């Protein structure tokens, strides 16, 4: 028995080694066919198997599709963009492993999807001179360093929501201050709107005591929180959180019959409409969403059509992949920055590095047209969140349809909650 076991052991070791070597061999055969020209490496450290993979994979699709499109149309002559990916399993430690990996591969642009990791890496981006296109986490974007976003900072989106909410209140001809309560995810992402509550109270909204749910991804019953908000007379319930949790809030609100007396406003774009409609169904009807992108059901917009064509072409299917918009726009911005640097600033392709891309992003990205996918994108040295405009949507017939046009919201640089 023992002898038999030790034979197994040897086989196991060989098997393990074989398994580990196999991928590297396959990797080698692939590298031989790399095209000529300068290659700019873009390192994506994102979540493919962790808690947020459903949104993160969508965003990676956006990056990859845009890169393929750029290559096919030869958007930036003489420059190839190569995307390398690293799975961080939604873990900060692993994200930083991944960052070191892509740094070792001489990446000049990176996308680290986890906000917690971006806080930790903020200073490293500057010392390593790597441009980071990150999710719009306000505290990682301000004060401006080497981190950029193609999206609108979460705080700015919240500010846009406050503005719209006040307008909506006035439009309905009601007097007095509207009462707004947050029912939000108890994690950094969910808190990202709270920290500009001062702005809400400044423009004349009464901010109620914040309610939380979570922080785990398991949806929890929010009846008590909703009833408390109702008792305090909330007119608007605002939330930032993962899509399933938002669907759950809407379902609970529907169950309690609150959907008519309160307006439910989701902020920021991870609440994708397809999933929301699938999971919450009629409970989601009439709910609002404030985000910096267009809905993917606005088929008349050239940007949406383009995104759709690309996805059908490269993925063979069309999904309401809203996170993909951010990836798509991020890659577009990088390609545009490199293109402008070469064309306008007379930088030779082989000189393009992180520094050039950063300078070009800050200088040349001015009213960049996204075909209606988002408002025109502008980056300045003191504001690294490219999108300045948000749009409000309402769920009708299972689709988020726009009820306003893109409108501008102020850029928030002061982060504090209302003192209770």
């Amino acid at each position: 028995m023992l002898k038999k076991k030790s034979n197994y052991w040897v086989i196991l070791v060989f098997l393990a080694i074989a398994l580990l070597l196999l991928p590297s061999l396959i990797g080698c055969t692939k590298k031989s066919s790399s095209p000529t020209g300068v290659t700019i490496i873009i390192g994506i450290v994102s979540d493919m198997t962790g808690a947020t993979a459903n949104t993160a994979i969508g965003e990676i699709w956006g990056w990859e599709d845009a890169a393929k499109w750029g290559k096919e149309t030869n958007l930036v002559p003489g420059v190839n963009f190569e995307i390398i990916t690293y799975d961080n399993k939604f873990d900060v430690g692993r994200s930083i492993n991944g960052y070191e990996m892509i740094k070792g591969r001489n990446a000049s642009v990176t996308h680290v999807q986890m906000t917690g990791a971006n806080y930790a890496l903020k200073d490293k981006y500057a010392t390593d001179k790597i441009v980071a296109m990150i999710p719009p986490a306000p505290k990682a974007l301000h004060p401006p360093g080497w981190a950029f976003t193609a999206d609108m900072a979460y705080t700015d989106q919240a500010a846009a929501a406050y503005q719209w909410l006040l307008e909506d209140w006035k439009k309905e001809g009601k007097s007095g201050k509207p009462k707004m309560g947050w029912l939000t995810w108890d994690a950094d992402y969910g808190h990202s709107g709270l920290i500009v509550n001062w702005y809400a109270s400044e423009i004349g909204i009464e901010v109620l005591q914040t309610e939380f749910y979570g922080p785990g991804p398991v949806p929890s019953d929010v009846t008590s929180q909703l009833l408390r908000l109702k008792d305090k007379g909330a007119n608007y319930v605002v939330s930032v959180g993962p899509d399933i949790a938002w669907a759950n809030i809407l379902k609970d609100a529907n169950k309690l019959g609150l959907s008519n007396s309160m307006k439910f406003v989701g902020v920021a774009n991870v609440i994708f409409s397809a999933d929301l409609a699938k999971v919450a169904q009629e409970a989601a009807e009439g709910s609002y969403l404030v985000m910096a992108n267009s809905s993917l059901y606005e088929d008349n917009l050239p940007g949406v059509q383009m995104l759709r064509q690309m996805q059908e072409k490269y993925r063979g299917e069309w999904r309401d992949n809203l996170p993909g918009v951010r990836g798509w726009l991020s890659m577009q911005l990088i390609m545009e920055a490199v293109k402008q640097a070469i064309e306008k600033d007379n930088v030779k392709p082989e000189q393009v590095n992180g520094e050039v891309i950063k300078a070009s992003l800050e200088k040349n990205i001015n009213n960049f047209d996204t075909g209606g996918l988002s408002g025109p994108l502008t980056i300045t040295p003191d504001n690294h969140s490219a999108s300045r405009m948000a749009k409000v949507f309402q769920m009708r017939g299972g689709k988020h349809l726009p009820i306003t046009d893109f409108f501008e919201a102020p850029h928030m640089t002061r982060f504090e909650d209302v003192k209770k």
Partner: protein
Amino acid sequence: MNGGVYALIALGIVLIYKSTRVLNIAQGQFLVVGAWIAFTFSSKIGLNIWLSFFLTLVAAIIIGFLIERFTFRPLIGQPISALITMTIVLMAGIEGLVLWIWGGWVETFPDFIPREPIRMGNIVLSQQLLWMFIIAMVFIGGFALFFKYTRTGLAMRATAEDHQVAQSVGISVKTVFGQTWAIAALIGAIGGIILGSLYGVSYQLGEWGLKVLTVAIIGGLDSIPGAIVAGLMLGLLEKVATGYVDPIIGGGLEAVFPFVILLIVLMIKPYGLFGLKEIERI
């Protein structure tokens, strides 16, 4: 009402613990697999919803047997710690497999429980949760009887005591292991179908496993009524936390308050609420 859901999933963990003394950390992944298979049958292939649920249960039983055959059978007679580690690894493995086959998206299958809530005066009940609760109770009751009166159930309990002793009295430990995992996978699939219809089918359902692990432990891992009471109690304590304690201390207590209470419970009743008190001899 979440309590019923907790109880049903916890039952899977309790069952495995009762017959094999293994703390199954991978139980959440059975939910995911069950939900995805049901989705594949009902929405991808387009079978009748009830037929596809039946097929899912059959598939789950097969998966349970397969998992047992290839991962746990070689470990019979080995230290329990190896078996527990195996469940941790299984969790990662099944999650990987699910992501590979079905991807990280959220899907839903057709409704089979009406969504309209039931109103009784002031009380509003979600029908989905109510049905979940009823199904959970039926299964829990069924398994309680199973353990008490059937030969297989008794064999499972004997195996839990000691693998070698069980083998020496003529119980096939292998068979018992297989049956246990099949049943656990079956329960997981039922939970997955119900949760999938409530919250959408995605690999994130697996997170329920970790949450429910605590429920199973509170109930006293080897007690079926314990799992029910603990499940309901955790649901209730969460409600108490969000309903009464949150306004005083500040939000987000839901995840924490039950634990504070349970720490106190544990100090008073060290073997969980309904756990078997072990008489220790030197």
